[in-house]
């Protein structure tokens, strides 16, 4: 995980939320004001009681009793009202910020390139989307408000204390210095564990997700309890971190409780001594302690408010690690248009290497030059791992070339809007990536406004008429990742999806690998009709798939070493024979 960049201050870090909070700020301020009023009223009510008891009631006049009762009722209702108002004010903005942040994250994640998703574990993304943003919302809702209000209360209280007796007030002030120090130390101690616990929670989410997505493998090998062991180890680590957090909190809390107690004891000693010396009245002494007692809660609360703040801070950091991750594949500033769409796809000396490839190796694609003419079908053949799939991914900019260029009808693909490019080029991946939606939605993913005729035509071409036998026909929901279909059925749906998008260029990555010979022949026959007018790039492992193509390109060591018709290459190119021919030598002799 990308962590440990330069450490910002907590304030600077949290301020990055501001753009999401801007419109909500007035209401947040009002919420703070209401909280402050409620706090003040809560402080005032006991004073009023005391004053009343000392004043009117002393006279024993029962008609006087109504005013104090009304005052207490009024103030009491005001307090309740202010609490309600604070919550009402803060609720919408806090949840609004939360929603905005969540939507922004999702949008961002969809925009970030595939290489980003390769690197980031899914659980880390999920924990950021859900629990981290929730933490920020809670902090805005309570943490921030209470932090401000309680700090203000403490300041006001201190002023009170100083005004009652400056000596005692000073004692109080001096004694609170350790608290500042401990709070500062606490940040160092806590912030790191808070971050670690969030990261570990993300890893745990990843483990859960993989254990469910990989359930078939785990079951096939009977490795459920083995996976559980791994999971338990991770959960144990998280527990350790959480306990470390608890210890840090216990530590700060200990000081937050002890220091005021010691201060009280010293104040008691000093106060009584001062009173004995006649420098302080008993009334002042009582008032001092009454006020100081009121300050205890705000002081104690600093502990959890700080931990909440640091939690929210590392959540913010984690959030912005995604929001600020560099996006290398973006739309061009001045997008170009294709004026005469024909579907000519050309690779000009294309170089490509994955960012995490071993340092001393040659580029995976080391100067691929290949031109596919409009309407032509080009097969790409090469051994496993030679880079065929990578080559196809470059055409729609799932990755960008690291050298050279790819042009579609003469325009560099990087000069087109991504949506435009991806509308012109449709892909079928080697593993059918289906969604848990209806068959219709899956097939029409690239062109949702297609008619039913177009849909059934696409299904027809892919020989996917089995969908009509499903319980609800084309509206049947297929399970997660389409796993309630057979392998060949999934592949045909993925093929139908690419065809239904009606692109100018079809990129098919080993599209017939899961089909039996007969179905394959049927699909090929139907596809040929489409391919007659559509440019296509087809990755092939078998001679039967190559049959689809007009010409074949042989990918070897990152370069196209030969282009030609299948029979030509078979006759002239030894590597081609090695890759594509499964006939034993004797068979070959027999045929020759």
């Amino acid at each position: 995980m990308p962590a440990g960049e330069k450490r910002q201050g907590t304030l600077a870090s949290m301020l990055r939320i501001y753009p999401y909070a801007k419109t909500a700020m007035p209401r947040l301020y009002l919420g703070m004001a209401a909280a402050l009023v409620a706090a003040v009223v809560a402080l005032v009510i006991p004073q009023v009681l005391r004053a009343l008891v000392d004043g009117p009631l002393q006279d024993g006049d029962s008609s006087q009793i109504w005013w104090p009762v009304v005052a207490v009722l009024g103030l009491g209702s005001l307090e309740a009202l202010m609490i309600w108002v604070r919550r009402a004010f803060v609720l919408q903005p806090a949840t609004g910020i939360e929603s905005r942040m969540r939507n922004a994250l999702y949008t961002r994640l969809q925009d970030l390139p595939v290489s980003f998703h390769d690197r980031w574990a899914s659980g880390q993304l999920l924990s950021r989307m859900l629990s981290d943003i929730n933490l920020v919302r809670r902090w805005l809702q309570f943490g921030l408000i209470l932090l401000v209000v309680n700090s203000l209360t403490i300041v006001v209280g201190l002023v009170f204390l100083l005004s009652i007796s400056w000596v005692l007030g000073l004692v109080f002030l001096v004694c609170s210095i350790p608290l500042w120090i401990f709070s500062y130390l606490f940040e160092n101690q806590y912030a790191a564990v808070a971050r670690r616990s969030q990261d570990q929670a993300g890893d745990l989410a990843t483990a859960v997700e993989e254990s469910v997505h990989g359930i078939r493998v785990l079951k096939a090998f009977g490795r459920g309890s083995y996976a559980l062991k791994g999971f338990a180890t991770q959960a144990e680590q998280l527990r350790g971190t959480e306990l470390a957090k608890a210890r840090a909190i216990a530590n700060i809390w200990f000081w937050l409780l002890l220091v005021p107690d010691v201060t009280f004891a010293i104040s008691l000693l000093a106060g009584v001594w001062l009173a004995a010396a006649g420098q302080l009245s008993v009334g002042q002494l009582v008032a001092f302690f009454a006020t100081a007692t009121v300050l205890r809660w705000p002081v104690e609360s600093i502990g959890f408010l700080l931990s909440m703040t640091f939690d929210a801070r590392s959540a913010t950091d984690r959030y912005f690690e995604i929001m600020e991750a560099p996006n290398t594949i973006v739309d061009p500033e001045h997008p170009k248009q294709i004026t005469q769409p024909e579907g000519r796809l050309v690779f000009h000396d294309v170089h490509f290497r994955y960012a995490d490839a071993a340092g001393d190796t040659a580029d995976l694609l080391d100067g691929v030059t290949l031109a596919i003419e409009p309407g032509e079908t080009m097969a790409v053949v090469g051994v496993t791992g030679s880079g065929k799939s990578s080559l196809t991914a470059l055409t729609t900019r799932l990755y960008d070339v690291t050298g050279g260029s790819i042009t579609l009808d003469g325009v560099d693909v990087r000069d087109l809007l991504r949506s435009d490019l991806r509308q012109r080029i449709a892909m079928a991946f080697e593993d059918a990536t289906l969604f848990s939606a209806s068959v219709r939605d899956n097939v029409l993913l690239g062109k949702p406004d297609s008619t039913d005729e177009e849909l059934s035509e696409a299904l027809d071409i892919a020989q996917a008429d089995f969908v009509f036998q499903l319980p609800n026909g084309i509206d049947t929901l297929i399970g997660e990742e389409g796993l309630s279909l057979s392998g060949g059925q999934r592949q045909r749906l993925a093929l139908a999806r690419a065809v239904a998008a009606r692109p100018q260029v079809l990129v098919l990555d080993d599209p017939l690998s899961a089909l039996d010979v007969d179905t394959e022949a049927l699909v090929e026959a139907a596809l040929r009709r489409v391919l007659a007018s559509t440019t296509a790039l087809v990755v092939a492992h078998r001679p039967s798939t190559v049959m689809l193509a007009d010409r074949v390109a042989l990918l070897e060591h990152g370069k196209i070493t030969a282009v030609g018709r299948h029979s030509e290459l078979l006759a002239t190119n030894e590597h081609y024979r090695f890759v594509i021919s499964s006939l034993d030598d004797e068979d070959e002799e027999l045929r020759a």
Partner: protein
Amino acid sequence: MSDTDSTLSGDSTVSGVTGEERNDFNKVESRQIRDRSLKLLNSLLRPLWARTTLTIAVVVVSTAAQVAGPAIIAFGIDTGLPAALDHRWIPLGLAVVGYLFTGIIGAVLIAWYTVLSARIGQAILFDLRKRVFRHTQRLSVEFHETYTSGRIIARQTSDLESIRELLDSGINQLVQSGLYMLFIAIALFLLDWKSGVVLVIALVPLAFLTRWFASRSQLAFRETRVTSARLIVQFVETMTGIRAVKAFRKEKRNETGFAGLVQDYRAANVGAIKLFGVFDPGLVLIGNVALAVVLLIGGLRVAAGGLEIGVLLAALLYARSFFAPAQEMAMFYNSYQAAAASLEKISGLLEERPGVPDPTRPIDLWEARGDLRFDGVEFGYGAGKVILPNFDLELLAGQTIALVGSTGAGKSTLAKLVSRFYDPSKGTISLDGVDLRMLHPKDLRRAIVMVTQEAYLFSGSVGENISLGKPGASRDEIVGAAKAVGAHEFISALPDGYDTDVNKRGGRVSAGQRQLISFARAFLADPSVLILDEATASLDIPSERLVQEGLQTLLADRTAIIIAHRLSTVAIADRVLVMEHGRIVEDGTPADLISGTGRFAHMHAAWRDSLV
């Protein structure tokens, strides 16, 4: 989820995860849900009772220490000061030392409590996490097909999160506040019982308010659970299929859908928070009104001379502080309601009975020979149509069987029955004469291993992925397996060799390489019955040839079912089964079938033609 799973215990409308997204339970259903939640909670707490008791004791003592503080200060002022004026400093000294003492005790205990309660909370979470994980692993593939991974992730993340919040907010709130209120109520009754009665009467509207809050917040929090699960489901699916999302420009449509879910989640949250936003000030209001009433009644009595003024003051202060902890308790109650909604969902998942249950009295099979028999087997997925109509079949130990047939014929289904992903709807499948349903799961998994059609790799190193076939395998064994299937070469070429991370779902390696790694994994597992479902479909021909060679030695003395569309595998098979529409239509040696005129002869001819 409204579909009923035939494997559920009982046939109630709310057992297991049935009705999980509903929010309109009748009395019986609500009770059933509450009971199972409580049962779960109980079983989580039971092993911890000693620690919990200790923690509560610590809280009680620390509360006592805290309550003593103000009394000592009062003592210092009331007794210490006059004494000090007489130049007797001992009472003051006593007060100061006493105060310091209680202060230190209080602080130490609270700190200790913090750690103790975190221990308890974390122990509960750890236990719960493991239980859910273990249980999801035990649930059948069929269950997972309908429940979706996102929801299980939701149970394990956001639901557990809200339970964690409850445990964090802690029992000290509850115990401490409860104690406070009790102490204060007693003190008030002793002081002036009439004011005490006012307080008790104030409990009536409090009870109504709490009841209102309880019933409404239960609904609201359920809603938050359901909406957050939906959010997670969509999120996980988008991230899993990000390539297709991009390639087919689904971003905008996804955004709209997601924004709707975010809005639902927000609305649910707002609903829940709003309720507390009424409950909390409601409590304050009740408290303050009670205060005014105490003041009114007391004031009248004071005016009439029936009450000391000092007593009234004390009564007022008590009444005021009675309601302060009530707010804390309300907060606890709020987190409790949130956690309860989560617990409902989790307990539902845990209640779900595995559709393919482990045998209660398992039969051991130490050395499997690999004899597979199907007797009157019939199968269909769930309540759907029959995929494999009634058939008998015997696969002799040591045979290599090629299973071929058109796509969707039911080959993988047969394989999944053999590896007991599903149980047949009728009839039995037995290994060496033992019904698979009775076989000890350990022995079953050791004896039968399947390489599934979709080669799934876990994030982690190549080595780890291969060693899944045999946990604890040495590096030599792993390398040996990789060499045997011809994967060693490319693995060595990866940046960190066997320690290279394959990324999520093995995205770091090519499709063919993924298959080779899965293959190596099965090779390492060394089972008596090996099932290969299209295990070489994404391989190039040279690699496939290497695999074939490896297979010939590997399969010499074990039963193997090889499913393949590329008939090159058939060469090494002893026997070929041809499947059409779930029926085995041809059965014989490859040579016999090829020379015949049946389906297989035709398929084989077509395949030969396709080779060039």
